[in-house]
Each structure stands twice: as structure tokens, then as C-alpha cells.
């Protein structure tokens, strides 16, 4: 059991077929439990009212937006070092998902920001870095589409991914880096207060537990979508190869 075995696309597709129903079901259960619990069975915050509940979408989406890029970075490195084709395709498959997660993060943040901050958007460093990450996703996908030769495209996008990871890391820690701007600091996970007692620094456990469930749901959803999309990429490439062979004959 090593990832190098899955450089064989057939083996990857077979394993993914086995895993997919389980991961999908687990993702659906976690998301349903986390979101329904979060939306309907948590008390309203005494100052923020019901708008606090957007946290169950916003925080996991923002987390996955960054983690998706990290996954793409690792996949790209594997491709550069070992020419692991499935890895390159997995990175390609993850990009649109990450872009959508970034978009969800931006949109839910705007919807929350309008009543809370009185503005849809502020040129706050944390928000700006996130917007740049979104642009990077767009550029990454556009570059994949623009280059005809698959291996060249994989190489070039891998290097773009390496360069762009600066911004992914920056947006991961942006919440802690800057004190200026509107976006509040990290309150979900803090050193020494991961699941501990409610403190003034950390989000209350009443909100934290459904949030954690929802976060796990987002991770599983991402895994399921990446598996599915990677399968699709492999099959699309195989179909293209077959068509090319037919034309040759």
C-alpha cells in the first residue's frame, strides 16, 4: 500500500470505485448533521443574532479553499519528482473544487459582512489575500486549458502551483498575521484551547461541535469530489487516446 501503486490509473480507478460510495455517504452524513444541527439547533448569538450560523459554511469552505491548494501543491510536487500521472490529474481535478470553495468563502463572508460590518467587501489584508487566491485558481485552471500537450501543461501548472502556494500559506496565516482590518482573528482553534472549556478567546463549544462536524463533512466532500473528478480526468484522457488511435488507423 503505497501511493506509487496508484500511478497505475486502472488500479486508481478500481480503488476509487470502492472508496467513493463510502466517502460520499460519510460526507453527506457529516454535512447533514453538521449543517442541520448548526442551523436549527444552536442558540442565536446574543449580539450577532442568527447571522452567526453562516460560520458553518464560511469557516469550513475557507479552510478547504486553502487545503485544496496545499493538496494540489503536494500532488504537483509528486508529479514533478516522480512523473506520477494520476497525481497531476488529481491536482487538475482539485482546482475547480478549490475555486468553488474560495468563492463560497468569499460570498458567505460578504453576506455575513453586510449586516455585521455594514459592508459587503472591505480591502482588508485577509480578504484581499483570499481574493488573490481565487484569482490564482482561475489562472491555474486557465493555464491547464490553454496548453494542448498534457505533460507540458502538467509541468507548467505544477510550477505555477508552487509559486501560488506562497499566497495559500499567506491566506492560511493571514487571520493571525495582521491585526488591522475588519476580519476578526482566529477564534475556532487556538493553541491550548482546541476542545477545552469555553473561554472568551475561543468560540463557544455550543457552536464548535457542529462546526467541527461540518468541517469534517467538507473534508470528506472534497475527498469524494477529487476522487470522482480524477476518475473522470483519467477516463477523458483515455477516451482522447482511443480517438487519436482511431484516427491514426
Amino acid at each position, binding site marked *: 500500500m503505497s501511493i506509487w501503486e496508484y500511478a497505475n490509473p486502472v488500479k486508481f480507478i478500481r480503488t476509487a470505485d470502492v472508496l467513493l460510495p463510502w466517502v460520499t455517504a460519510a460526507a453527506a452524513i457529516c454535512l447533514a448533521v453538521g449543517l442541520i444541527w448548526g442551523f436549527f439547533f444552536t442558540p442565536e448569538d446574543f449580539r450577532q443574532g442568527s447571522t452567526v450560523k453562516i460560520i458553518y459554511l464560511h469557516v469550513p469552505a475557507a479552510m478547504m479553499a486553502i487545503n485544496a491548494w496545499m493538496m494540489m501543491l503536494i500532488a504537483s510536487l509528486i508529479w514533478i519528482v516522480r512523473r506520477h500521472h494520476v497525481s497531476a490529474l488529481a491536482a487538475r481535478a482539485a482546482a475547480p473544487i478549490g475555486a468553488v470553495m474560495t468563492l463560497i468563502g468569499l460570498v458567505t463572508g460578504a453576506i455575513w459582512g453586510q449586516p455585521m460590518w455594514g459592508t459587503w467587501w472591505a480591502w482588508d489584508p485577509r480578504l*484581499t489575500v483570499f481574493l*488573490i487566491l481565487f*484569482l*490564482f485558481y*482561475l*489562472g491555474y485552471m*486557465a*493555464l491547464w486549458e*490553454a*496548453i494542448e500537450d498534457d505533460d*507540458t501543461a502538467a*509541468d*507548467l501548472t505544477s*510550477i*505555477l502551483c*508552487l*509559486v*501560488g502556494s506562497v*499566497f495559500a500559506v499567506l491566506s492560511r496565516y493571514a487571520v493571525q498575521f495582521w491585526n488591522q482590518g475588519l476580519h476578526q482573528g482566529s477564534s475556532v482553534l487556538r493553541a491550548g484551547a482546541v476542545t477545552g472549556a469555553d473561554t472568551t478567546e475561543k468560540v463557544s463549544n455550543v457552536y464548535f461541535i457542529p462546526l467541527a462536524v461540518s468541517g469534517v463533512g467538507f473534508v470528506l466532500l472534497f475527498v469524494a469530489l477529487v476522487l470522482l473528478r480524477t476518475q473522470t480526468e483519467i477516463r477523458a484522457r483515455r477516451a482522447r487516446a482511443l480517438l487519436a488511435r482511431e484516427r491514426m488507423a
Partner: protein
Amino acid sequence: MIALLTRDLRLAVRAGGGFGLGLAFFLIVTVLVPFAVGPQTDLLTQIAPGVLWIGALLACLLSLDRIFALDWEDGSLDLLATAPLPMEGIVTVKALAHWITTGLPLVLAAPLLGVLLNLAGPGYLWLFVSLALGTPALSVIGTFGAALTVGLKRGGLLMSLLVLPLYVPTLIFGAEVARRGAEGLAVQTPLLMLAGISFGVAALLPFASAAVLRINLR
């Protein structure tokens, strides 16, 4: 490497159009802004540093696809790649040539154009300093974008999409230096950030550009 630099410079000067194009574009942007926002001088004073930075950035962007495209078309890029020079060196020289032909004129022209936008007194010095520090970063980042899209038929738009997010930090801190300088505030923090970006980019990105170029020449 010096031969390559002088060759690129000579080409840029003699080919015509390329050398002055960025400057002309910069001039157009700065002249058009007062028409668009109205001629109130205090408003112009307020936005002048930002407008000048935007103009310089767009003028820089305009000439990026020239960095490798011509050499790619006539095959001299392949010759350069087989020459006994490290690819990183070639990329750096190309970026330097691009800076000398577009960045440097912009830096020198910006204070003059500042007059048109009624830039505040101390702003001239800081605008000059921030552009002098920032435009090399724009050239180096642009070289990376140009190297990524060199083989593509219509790479220009894609290159803008790839390069613009990378330009954002330089723009933020560069314009911040100019703005704070113009308003007489302390410029140290954004100046240090800008210098950090420029030197960091100049130190690291040529490796990425060279790797990308090698892949494109394969």
C-alpha cells in the same frame, strides 16, 4: 550575458515602437485620469500616487509578451538555451533588459507626470523611490508570466490573468509608499515590505522562470 543584454537593448531601441510604447501608454493613462474624475486639484492630489502606480503597472504589463515572443518565433531562444549560459542567467538578463527598456523610463517619467496630477511636494521623491524599487519586481514577475505562456498562440490575456495576482502585493506596498510619502507620513514599513518583495522575487523567481522555459522549449 552582457552581450545578450546589449543585444536585447539594441533590438528594443532599433525595432521601434517597443521602447516608447510603455511610456506613451503611461502618458495616456495619466492624462486621461483627470478627464475621468474631474479637474478638482485636491482630489487629484489625493489619488495621484495610486494612479501613477497603476499606470506604471499597466504600461509594464503591456510590453511583457515581448520578452520572449520574438526570440521564440525566430528560434533564437533555442540557440540561447543551448548556449553555455545557465537558463536562470538568461532569464535574469531578459528581465533586466525589460526593466531597462520599460521600467526605467517609467521611473524617470513618473515625477514629470506627477505634475499633471498635482502630486504633493514630498510625494515626488517617494514616488521615484517606490517605482525604482518596485518596477524591477514587476519585470521579474512578468518574465515568469511570459515564460509560462511563451509557446501559446494567444498567450497575452492568459498571461495577464497569471501575472496580475502576483503583481498585487508589489502594487499595494509600492502605492502605499508613494501615498504615505506624499502625505508626509512614515514610509518605513511599506518601504521595507516593497524592498523585501523585490529582492525576494529577484532571488527566487528566475529559478521558476527558467524551469518553465526549459519545459516550454522541450
